[in-house]
């Protein structure tokens, strides 16, 4: 699966309070949450992000709270993928579970500049900066996670497994 979009670039430790501030958590409506996406870090983001855009960030992206509202609102805002040097572990799980692709690639995270056109081939983890022609290789997903991603998230993955278990029993 190929993703293309414009890069938004941020630094280290982009935390979940920055992605979606606590004051907006009295709703679970993705569209409502998306209106405030990254508001305290970059007030221009929510109004200017285009469907397909890609976030490039430094270390420990998504640190802080376990709120799944964070990947949910990024996805609802139109973000197609997050590329970072490293991810906080709860955010990483949440993103995979919801089907928001996240790629660990320190080289790409450092080199890609804001506004560049980025292409990501999810099946291989290849990242291309179309403005510079540079090509990067993201860390491959462990097999365990690939199965969840292939199923479209943890809920469909679990349903598939549950059905398989029922099927094998009859």
């Amino acid at each position, binding site marked *: 699966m190929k993703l293309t979009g414009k890069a938004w670039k941020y630094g280290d430790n982009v*935390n979940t309070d920055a992605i979606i501030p606590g004051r907006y958590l009295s709703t679970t409506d993705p569209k409502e949450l998306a209106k405030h996406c990254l508001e305290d870090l970059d007030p221009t983001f929510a109004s200017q992000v285009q469907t397909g855009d890609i976030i490039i960030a430094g270390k420990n992206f998504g640190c802080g709270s376990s709120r*799944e509202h964070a990947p949910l609102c990024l996805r609802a805002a139109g973000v197609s993928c997050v590329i970072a040097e490293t991810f906080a572990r709860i955010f990483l799980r949440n993103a995979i579970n919801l089907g928001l692709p996240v790629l660990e690639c320190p080289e790409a995270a450092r080199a890609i500049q804001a506004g560049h056109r980025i292409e990501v081939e999810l099946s291989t983890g290849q990242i291309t900066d179309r403005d510079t022609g540079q090509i990067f290789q993201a860390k491959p997903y462990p097999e365990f996670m690939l199965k969840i991603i292939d199923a479209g998230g943890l809920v469909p993955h679990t349903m598939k497994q549950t059905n398989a278990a029922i099927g094998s029993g009859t």
Partner: protein
Amino acid sequence: MAMTLAEKILAAHAGLEHVSPGDFIEARVDMVLANDITAPLAIGQFQRLNVPGLFDRQRVALVQDHFAPPKDIAAANQCKLVRGFARQHGLAHYYEGGKTGGIEHVVLPEQGVVLPGEVIIGADSHTCTYGALGAFSTGMGSTDVAVAMATGRIWMKVPETIRFIYEGELQPWVGAKDLILYTISDIGVEGALYQAMEFGGPVIAAMGMDGRFTMANMAVEAGAKAGLFAVDDTTLDYVRRRTGRPFTVYHSDPDAQYALVRRYGVSQIEPQIAFPHLPSNTRPVSQAGHVPIDQVFIGSCTNGRISDLRQAARVLKGRQVDRQVRCIIIPGDATTYRQALVEGLIETFVEAGAMVGTPSCGPCLGGHSGVLGEGERCVSTTNRNFVGRMGHVKSEVYLANPAVAAASAILGRIAAPAEL
């Protein structure tokens, strides 16, 4: 083969003789937790799974604490949804106000719902708090929790363990909060990313349960998956006073493999304060300089327990909160509140000019009951000082222990108790 405490608990719950860091396992969970913010998403995902019911109604806990009592209509509707789900499924562990309610990470240990040797997952990052009991306890998202509510199982990658050893004599007014802030500033906010932290040494052996909860609570602020303590007489005494449920005690093998061992001589550590906007941005209070403040908050899952309130009361007793400062004190749960009443702490707080609130997460996440305005500064006993965490994007949060927070409330600026 030798294993750490974390590895032993995970091996036992995966039905394996042995696990090593990096192994992917599917583990049985003993308790699954969500709160009023994360449960609504989890309930939605649970319903999508289309399963007949919970895997075990005794092993799912729901706590209304973040925006509870409901701060507005939207929050009330979320709380209502969670309450309805709890009733529908006959949850054994549902907490909303009353004699047992309060903040999830204060309530569950207090009610004996989480025990040593267990695997606990919660849709709240501070679920790592229960590592203080010698459990493997970690925060996850709502979807992970929904699947665990249905299946009683969860996939995990076995983390490496870092061991932290604390030796020496603690200085006056220095406690668990200072040790964990000092540790996070040493290793950084991603210093233990994907790893488990194991706390030990003579200082830890002498520490009470409340302090251990404080330290385990903030393991996630170093990026850790879990923060664990060895079970000892202090743990067993705490647990046996609260429940008769059986549990298994695991210990790290003496020759277990650690990714890193850090030793700290605590005698040199002063009360710490984390400046905006990261918990690792810590310095000794004596080097804070002149920082006037607008609010003090004493409470939360980090420092809302009875020992914390006793510390604050020792400082506030017979003194007055500066007239420029709102001083908000919120006991972590109803049990703590009642004990504080019995000991006269609440009277001390009100006499000193502090406001005492209903058990809730409230101000910690900028929810309610003490939200910061533009440019306001708060000394807080909570766990995060990110941009906008407690309110306006241009407000500032300084993290400290309850005694430092109380001293700051009296002097109207960041201050050490020794200055009074």
